[in-house]
C-alpha cells in the first residue's frame, strides 16, 4: 500500500508526521489512531505527542531513543490502515445555558442567520462535534461539524475578558473557553462544568478524537449544576463509543 504520510524532522528532538494537506475527519481519524498507537507503545524517551488537524508532532529525548528506533516506531504506528483505535472515543454531554447573560451574542448570531434565537440553539445543540485538536489555550477544543448556517463573523471589537465556560461561535468554528481570556467570538451560551481543571487528573477531560454534544439547560439547572461542580458532586455525562 502506498504510504500516505510524510515524516518531517523538526530539529534534533522533535519530528512531525503529516497526513495530507487538508482538514477532513478522515485524515484527522488517521492522525488520532496513529498517535494513539505510538502512545500505546510506551517508548522511553517520548516526552510529548501533539495531535493536530492533519499531523502529529513527537517531542523526544535523543539520549533515550535513537533516531533509527524512533523512525521504526513511527512507521509501525502509521502502517495499519484498519484503525483498531478508531472505536476508542468518548462522547461528552456538556450542559449549556443559552442566551440572556449567558450568551449575550445569541441574538447577533440569530440575526446573521435570519432565524430565531431558539432555532440557533436547536441547530447548535443537535449536532455532534468531533475534537480535531486541543490548543491555543489549555484544553481549547477545535471542533468539526458546526451547522454552516450558524457561521458568524468574529466581533469587530473583541472582548477583553471572556468568562470561563463561555460557548461561542467565531467564523466557521464553535468552542468552549477553558479559561477566562480575551477574544472576539460571539458568545451564545455558557456551561457551568469545568472541562479543564489543573487540579484534576487528567487536567483536561477530553482529547483529540472525542465527541462533544451540547445539552441546553435552564437558568435554574445552571445554578444547580454550578453548585454541584463547586462541591465536586457533578459528573459530566459521558458515553463510550
Amino acid at each position, binding site marked *: 500500500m502506498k504510504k500516505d504520510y510524510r515524516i518531517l524532522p523538526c530539529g534534533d528532538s*522533535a519530528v512531525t508526521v503529516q497526513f495530507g494537506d487538508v482538514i477532513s475527519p478522515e485524515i484527522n481519524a488517521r492522525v488520532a489512531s496513529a498517535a494513539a498507537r505510538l502512545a500505546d507503545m510506551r517508548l522511553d524517551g517520548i516526552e510529548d505527542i*501533539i495531535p493536530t488537524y492533519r499531523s502529529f508532532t513527537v517531542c523526544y529525548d535523543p539520549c533515550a531513543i535513537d533516531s533509527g528506533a524512533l523512525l521504526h516506531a513511527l512507521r509501525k504506528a502509521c502502517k495499519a490502515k484498519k484503525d483498531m483505535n478508531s472505536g476508542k472515543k468518548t462522547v461528552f454531554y456538556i450542559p449549556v445555558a443559552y442566551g440572556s447573560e449567558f450568551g449575550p451574542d445569541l441574538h447577533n448570531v440569530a440575526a446573521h442567520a435570519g432565524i430565531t434565537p431558539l432555532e440557533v440553539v436547536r441547530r447548535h445543540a443537535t449536532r455532534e462535534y468531533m475534537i480535531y485538536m486541543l*490548543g491555543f489555550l489549555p484544553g481549547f477544543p477545535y471542533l468539526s461539524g458546526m451547522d454552516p448556517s450558524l457561521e458568524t463573523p468574529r466581533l469587530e471589537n473583541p472582548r477583553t475578558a471572556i468568562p470561563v465556560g463561555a460557548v461561542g461561535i467565531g467564523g466557521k468554528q464553535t468552542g468552549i473557553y477553558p479559561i477566562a481570556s480575551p477574544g472576539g467570538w460571539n458568545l451564545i451560551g455558557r456551561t457551568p462544568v469545568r472541562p479543564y481543571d489543573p487540579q484534576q487528573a487528567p487536567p483536561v477531560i477530553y482529547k483529540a478524537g472525542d465527541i462533544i454534544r451540547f445539552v441546553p439547560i435552564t437558568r435554574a439547572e445552571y445554578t444547580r449544576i454550578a453548585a454541584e461542580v463547586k462541591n465536586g458532586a457533578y459528573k459530566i455525562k459521558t458515553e463510550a463509543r
Partner: protein
Amino acid sequence: MALEIINPGPLSTVQDGGGKGYMQAGFPRAGVMDDYSFYKANALLHNDPNAAVIEMTMLGVKAKFTAPCRFVAAGGDFGGMLNDTPIRPNTVYQAAAGDLLSFGAAKSGCRCYLAVKGGFDVPMIMGSRSTDIKCRLGGVDGRKLQKGDLLPICPADTDASPNGASFHNPMPQGVARLRAVPGPQDDAFTADDLVLFFSQPYTVTAESDRMGMKLDGAPLQSKNGMDIISDGIAFGAVQVPRSGKPIVLMADRQTVGGYAKIATVLTCDLHIAAQLRPADRVQFVKTDLAAAQAAAVAYRKTLYSL
C-alpha cells in the same frame, strides 16, 4: 527555610525543566529558557537535576535568606552581592541566616538563575514547578514573583561542591551563531529565501520574550504564503509570519501554530539564544540532522554532570 523576596525585579519566575506530557491538551512546556545554566547550577549543588530555580530577566531580585543556605547564581552576570560582597556568576556560595542577596542590571547575558541547595519548594502541578504566566499555573500562584513572597526551600543534605567551586559558562559575544536544521516546512520557502535565512545576520528585537525571540532582517518571501494548517511546535522552531521576519519559539511557546517553520535551532544551542538581548546579533548556521542529533546527545551527557 525560605527566601524572602524584598524586590522582585521586572520578571522573575520560578522555573524547572518544564512540564512534559501535556502539550497534547494545549499546555505549553514552560520551564527554564537557558537549560545549560540551570542544569549545571543544580549539578554544582548536588541537587536533583530538575530542582526549581528563580529565573531573573535583565534585572535581578533582592532577597533575604531566613536560614543558612548554599546557592549559585548562574548565567548572565547581574552584579550579584551577598550583603556587601560581590559574588561571581556560576559559583557556589554559602549564605547565613539573615543574609541579603541582591542583583542589579545584567552586565552580560539576559537571564540569571538563582539555584539553592534543595531547590525551591513550590507546589508541583502536572509534573512541574514551572511558572506559566499565561495559563496562571505553577510557581507562586502562576505569576511572577512579587515583594513579600516567601519561597520555601526543600530540605536537603549538606552535600554540595565546596564554596568557590564554579563552572565555565560564557555569555554570547559578537554575532551569536545558532546552528539550525532546515524544516519542518523549509519546502514552503524559495531557494533564495533559504540562502538568505542562513547567511544574513539578524538583530534581536525588543518584542522578544519567553514565548519567542523576534528577529529583524531582510524579509523572506515564501512561495506558498506563510500559512500552513496548524501543527505542533518544537522548542527552537523558527516560524516565519507574514512579515517575513523569523521568530525563534522558546519555552512558553504555544503548542500549535499555523505559520510555516523554516528551520529548527539545535537544542544544544538554545541556551545561547536564551541569553541574547534586544539589539544583539544572531546568525543561523545550516546543519544536517545527523550532526544535530549527535550534538544533542553529546550536549545532554555533559549537562547532568560536572
